[in-house]
C-alpha cells in the first residue's frame, strides 16, 4: 500500500472539497472492505483517502409508504438486512445482501460501497488495468475468462459488475443521489453504471469529486419480487450469475415485469426480452424458462464462459418462479 494522507470530513461539502478532479489522486473510503484490498494490491494508489465514516447524513435507512425507501450510502449491509421495513417491503434486497454472507463484510461493507465496488476481474486486480491489457493487447478474450462477461462484452471491457444489490435495486426502479461541487443530482440506477471505453474511465457515472449519498427506492406495494443467485461456494464468493425479478400481477396475469441480470456484463444487465415474454402471461415453469432463454438470447460468450449463458438463463427462470410463488 502506498502512503497516503487520511481525511475524515464530517460534512459532504467538506468531503467533496477534499476529493480531486482527477481519478486516482484521491479515493473515497466507506467500509474499506474493497478499497483497502485495492490499495494493498497497488491497484489504487491515492495520495489522499477521504473517509465518509464521520458524515452522519450519509447514514440511516428510512421507509415511508408514500415515497418509499431511502438508504443512506453509508448504511451497512447488516443494517439493511436487519431493517424490519426493508424485510417487509423489499425482501429481495435483503436476500441480495445476505448473499454476501461473511459477517465481517456485512458489518463493515456499505450499501454505497456495494454499488461502487470495483470489478473482481483478476487481470484488473493483478495490475493490468480495468480493461486488462498488456502491451496494448487485451488479455481477456484469449485468457482465463471463465468468470467474465457474456453480454455487453464486445470490448474493450470484459469484466462483470460485481454488485449483488444493483440488479435488485434496478428491478425495483431505484435511483441514486450524487453530490458534487455543483450540488446534488439524481440518476436512475439503471443509468448509473457505465461500460468504460478507455482505461481512464470508470464503471459508473461518478466524477472523481462526487460521492454517492442516497439510494431511493419507490414503494413496491403490490409487487412480487425475488432474486436468484448461482453460487458455487456458500460464502466468501461472488455469484457466477444472478437475476432479480419484480412482477406486477393482475390476478394471475403479469401486468408488468422487470428482469435484471447480475454478474454477466460490465453493467447490471436489464433483460427487456425476458420482460416481453412475461407480460400478459400466467407464470408457469414453461413461461419462466422461455423468459430465461429470451434473457440470454443475445449472449456472446467468450472462449471459456459459455456455461454462464446457461447459468444466467436458469437464474432468470428460478427468480421468476420464486417471485411468482410469493417472493424471496
Amino acid at each position, binding site marked *: 500500500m502506498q502512503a497516503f494522507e487520511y481525511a475524515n470530513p464530517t460534512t459532504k461539502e467538506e468531503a467533496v472539497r477534499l476529493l480531486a478532479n482527477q481519478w486516482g489522486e484521491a479515493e473515497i473510503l466507506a467500509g474499506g472492505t474493497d478499497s483497502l484490498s485495492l490499495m494493498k*494490491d497497488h491497484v489504487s494508489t491515492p495520495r489522499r483517502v477521504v473517509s465518509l465514516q464521520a458524515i452522519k447524513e450519509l447514514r440511516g435507512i428510512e421507509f415511508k409508504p408514500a415515497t418509499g425507501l431511502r438508504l443512506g450510502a453509508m448504511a451497512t449491509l447488516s443494517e439493511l438486512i436487519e431493517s424490519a421495513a426493508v424485510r417487509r417491503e423489499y425482501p429481495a434486497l435483503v436476500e441480495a445482501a445476505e448473499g454476501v454472507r461473511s459477517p465481517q463484510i456485512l458489518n463493515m461493507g456499505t450499501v454505497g460501497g456495494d454499488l461502487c465496488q470495483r470489478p473482481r476481474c483478476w487481470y484488473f486486480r493483478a495490475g493490468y488495468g480495468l480493461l486488462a491489457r498488456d502491451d496494448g493487447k487485451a488479455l481477456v478474450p*484469449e485468457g482465463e475468462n471463465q468468470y467474465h462477461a457474456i453480454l455487453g462484452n464486445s470490448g474493450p471491457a470484459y469484466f462483470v459488475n460485481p454488485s449483488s444489490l444493483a440488479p435488485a435495486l434496478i428491478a425495483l426502479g431505484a435511483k441514486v443521489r450524487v453530490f458534487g461541487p455543483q450540488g446534488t443530482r439524481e440518476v436512475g440506477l439503471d443509468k448509473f453504471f457505465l461500460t468504460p471505453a478507455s482505461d481512464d474511465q470508470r464503471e459508473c457515472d461518478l466524477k472523481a469529486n462526487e460521492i454517492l449519498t442516497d439510494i431511493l427506492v419507490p414503494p413496491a406495494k403490490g409487487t412480487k419480487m425475488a432474486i436468484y443467485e*448461482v*453460487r458455487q461456494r456458500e460464502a*466468501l464468493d461472488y455469484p457466477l450469475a444472478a437475476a432479480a425479478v419484480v412482477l406486477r400481477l393482475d390476478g394471475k396475469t403479469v401486468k408488468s415485469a422487470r428482469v435484471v441480470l447480475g454478474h454477466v456484463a460490465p453493467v447490471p444487465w436489464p433483460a427487456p426480452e425476458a420482460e416481453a415474454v412475461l407480460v400478459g402471461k400466467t407464470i408457469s415453469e414453461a413461461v419462466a424458462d422461455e423468459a430465461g432463454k429470451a434473457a440470454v438470447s443475445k449472449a456472446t460468450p467468450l472462449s471459456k464462459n459459455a*456455461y454462464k449463458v446457461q447459468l444466467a438463463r436458469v437464474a432468470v427462470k428460478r427468480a421468476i418462479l420464486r417471485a411468482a410463488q410469493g417472493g424471496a
Partner: protein
Amino acid sequence: MAKCKYDWPEAGQRKLIGKRISRVTGPAMASGQAKYSYDINRPGMLYARLLACPYAHAKIKSIDTSEAEKLPGVKTVRIIQRVGTEIQWAGDEIVAVVAEREEIAEDALRRIKVEYEKLPHIVHEEDLSQVGDRAKPAAEQRTGDPDAAFKDPDAVISEGYYGLPVIIHCTPETHGGVAEWVDAENLRVWISTQNVSGLPPQIAETLGTPVTNIQALCEYMGGGFGSKFSPDRWGIEMARLAKDVGKPVKLMLQREHDSMVAGARPSYFAKIRVAAKKDGTLTGWESDTWGTGGPGGATLPPIPYVLNVPNQIKRHTSVATNVGPARAWRAPGHPQACYLTMTALDDLAAKLNMDPIEFLMKNLALAKPREQIYRQELQKAAELAEWTKNWHPRGDKSPGPIKRGLGVSIHTWGGGGHNSLCNVAIHPDGSVEITLGSQDLGTGTRTVIAITAAETFGLPVEAVTVNIGDSKYPPSGGSGGSTTVGGVSGSTRRGCVDALEQLFAAVAPGLGVPAEQLEAADGRIQVKGDAAKSLTWKQACAKLGVKSVQVQGKNPGPCQLGSSGVGGVQIADVSVDTETGIVKINKMVAVQDCGLIIDLKTAENQCYGAITMGIGYSLFEEKIMDQVTGRMLNPNLDSYKLAGIGDIGEIVVHMMTGPGYDDRGVIGLGEPPVIAPGAAISNAVANAIGVRVPTLPLTPAKVLAALAKGGIA
C-alpha cells in the same frame, strides 16, 4: 508372544490411550496465547520484503537498487539472484529489502528497477500437443501380458480421460519467520516449519555456519501440508539480512507471493484403459499419463493405485513448465494416483453393470496385504452411508433438476514412525517433562506425547509438560509422511517406562518390596495387587531427594510399538444441480485405520480436516495460470477457492480399532484421509448424473459440459 517391557498396555488397562481427549494446546490456540512465527516480535526488529519476478521465464538483464537504498528507513538492499540468472517462474525472488517498517520496505521494492529479457514460457500442460519440447517421455513400463489381456474377446474394456490440475498448499500461516544473531557467531531463527530438528543442518550448510551455532524454534505453526521442510531461500536470506543489519529481521511471505512460489501439487492427466472379465475380475491396465510440477516436471504417480492390476503398460511424460516449483503435498502422489485409478475403475464397474463396492470387493486379492482390512472398511463405510438404500446404478432417474449420487474410493499410506529421541524427566516435586525437537503442525503432537507419558505414569494428561519446537532439544524427525505420531509416541513410551523403573527403584525400599512389584496407577505408585501399600505420585517423587530422574527415550527401539501401512475407505454422497452444474456435498463417510490410536479425538480431527481439504480440491481448487502473462491469476484467498464450512456437508468419521488394528501399534494418520475424496466425489457425481466429469475441480462449467455430451440416461 512374550510380553516386551515397553509394550503398550493391554486394551482393558488403557486409561487414556484411545479415548477422545481434547488437545492440550486448545485453550492457548483459541485465546491467542499461542505464538506463531508470525507473532514473534524481537526488540529492535526490522522487516524484510522480497521483490518478485513478474515473468514466468526470463533472464535478468540489469538490477538498479539505488533509488530503494535512498529511501529513508531502508536499512539494506540485497540482491538475491544476480544479473544473468534465468528465472523459471513468476514470483521468484530477485531482491530483498530490509526497512524499519513493513510499508517502507514495500515502498522500497517499487523503486527497484530490474530489466528482464523475456523468454518463452509454458504454463498450461493439459493439452500435450501445445508444450513442444517441454515434454519428456519416460520409458514404457510393462508387466505381464497386457496385449493378450486387452485382446481377449471376453474382456470388458473401459476407456477414459481423467485429470487433476496443479493446486497449491494454501497454508493458513504463510512461509517465513524471524532471524536474530544472538552474537557474532550464533544464529536463532523462528521459522514456520515441519522440521525443527532438521533445519539447522540445512541452514548451516548454506550459510557456512557451524550447525551447533544455529537454533531453530517453532512453538506453534499454522500448517505446512508438506511445503515447510526446508529453510527455503527466504529463510536463508532472512539470516543473511539479519547479519547485514545487525538486528533481528522478520520475513514472512505475503499471501500472493506464497501462493505463487511456496507450494504446488503436481498435476496429472491420463488416458486410461482397464480390462476385466465379465464377472468383474480385473485383467489389464494401460495408461498414458502426463503432468507437471514446474520446471522439474512430474514423475509417474503410483498407478494403478492400491489394486495391483495384472498385465500393465504404462507410458508417462513429464512436462517441464513455468507454473512454479512443486512441493510435497499431503500424501505426495497419492491423491492423484487414487483419483486416476479409482475413477477409471468406477467407470469400468459401471460398464460391467456392477455395484462399485461389489466390484472392489471382488478384486481385493489385488490389495494384498490389506485385503481383510479393506473388506471390513468397505462394509463399515457402506453401512454408514446407507449404501444399499441410497445407491443406484448410474444416473439418478428421479424427477427434477437435482440428482443425487454415491461414490466410493479406497486409499493406502505408510506412516511408520520416524527416528525420535526425547528426554524424560521426573522431578522431585512430582512434575514431569517430556522434551524433544519435534513440532506440532496443528495435528496434536503435544497432546499425543502428553497422553503417552500420562498413560505410562498413571497420571492425568495435565500433569505432563511437553517441550517441543526447539532444535536444541533431542532431535526428532521432520513431520512428513505421517511419521510423527509413531516416532514421538515410541520414544516417549520407552523413555517413560525406563524413567518409571528408576522411580520404582527409589521408592521400593520404603514400601518394602522389590521394585519389580510396583506399578503406577491412578496417580499413585503402588504394590501390584495390594493398593493399600502405596504412595501418591508426589510422595513417591519426593523420595528422589534433590535429583531428578533424567532418561532418554528412543525410536526405533526394543519392542514393536508401531508399524507402517494403512487402508481407508471413503464414500461421498452428493447432489448435483443439473441445470447449473453446482455440486453440493451431502455427506462424506470416512472409515480409516491407523493401528493403535493414541487420541481418538485428534485422530478424528485429522479426518475432518483432510476431508474438508479434499472437498476443496475436488470442487474448487486450481492454480489458475494465464498463458499470455505466465502469471497465477488467483493468488489471493478471494479468488483461490477453498471449501468453507457451508460447503462440506456432514462428515462422518469412523476409526477402526480393536483386534487386528490396535495390535499393529501406532501408525500415522496425517495424510491418508486426504487421498480418497477426489475419486469418491467424482464417482458420486458420475453416479448422480450418469456421465463422468473427467477432471477436477468439478466446476459448473465442467459438469454442464459433461452433461451436454450425455448423461442421466
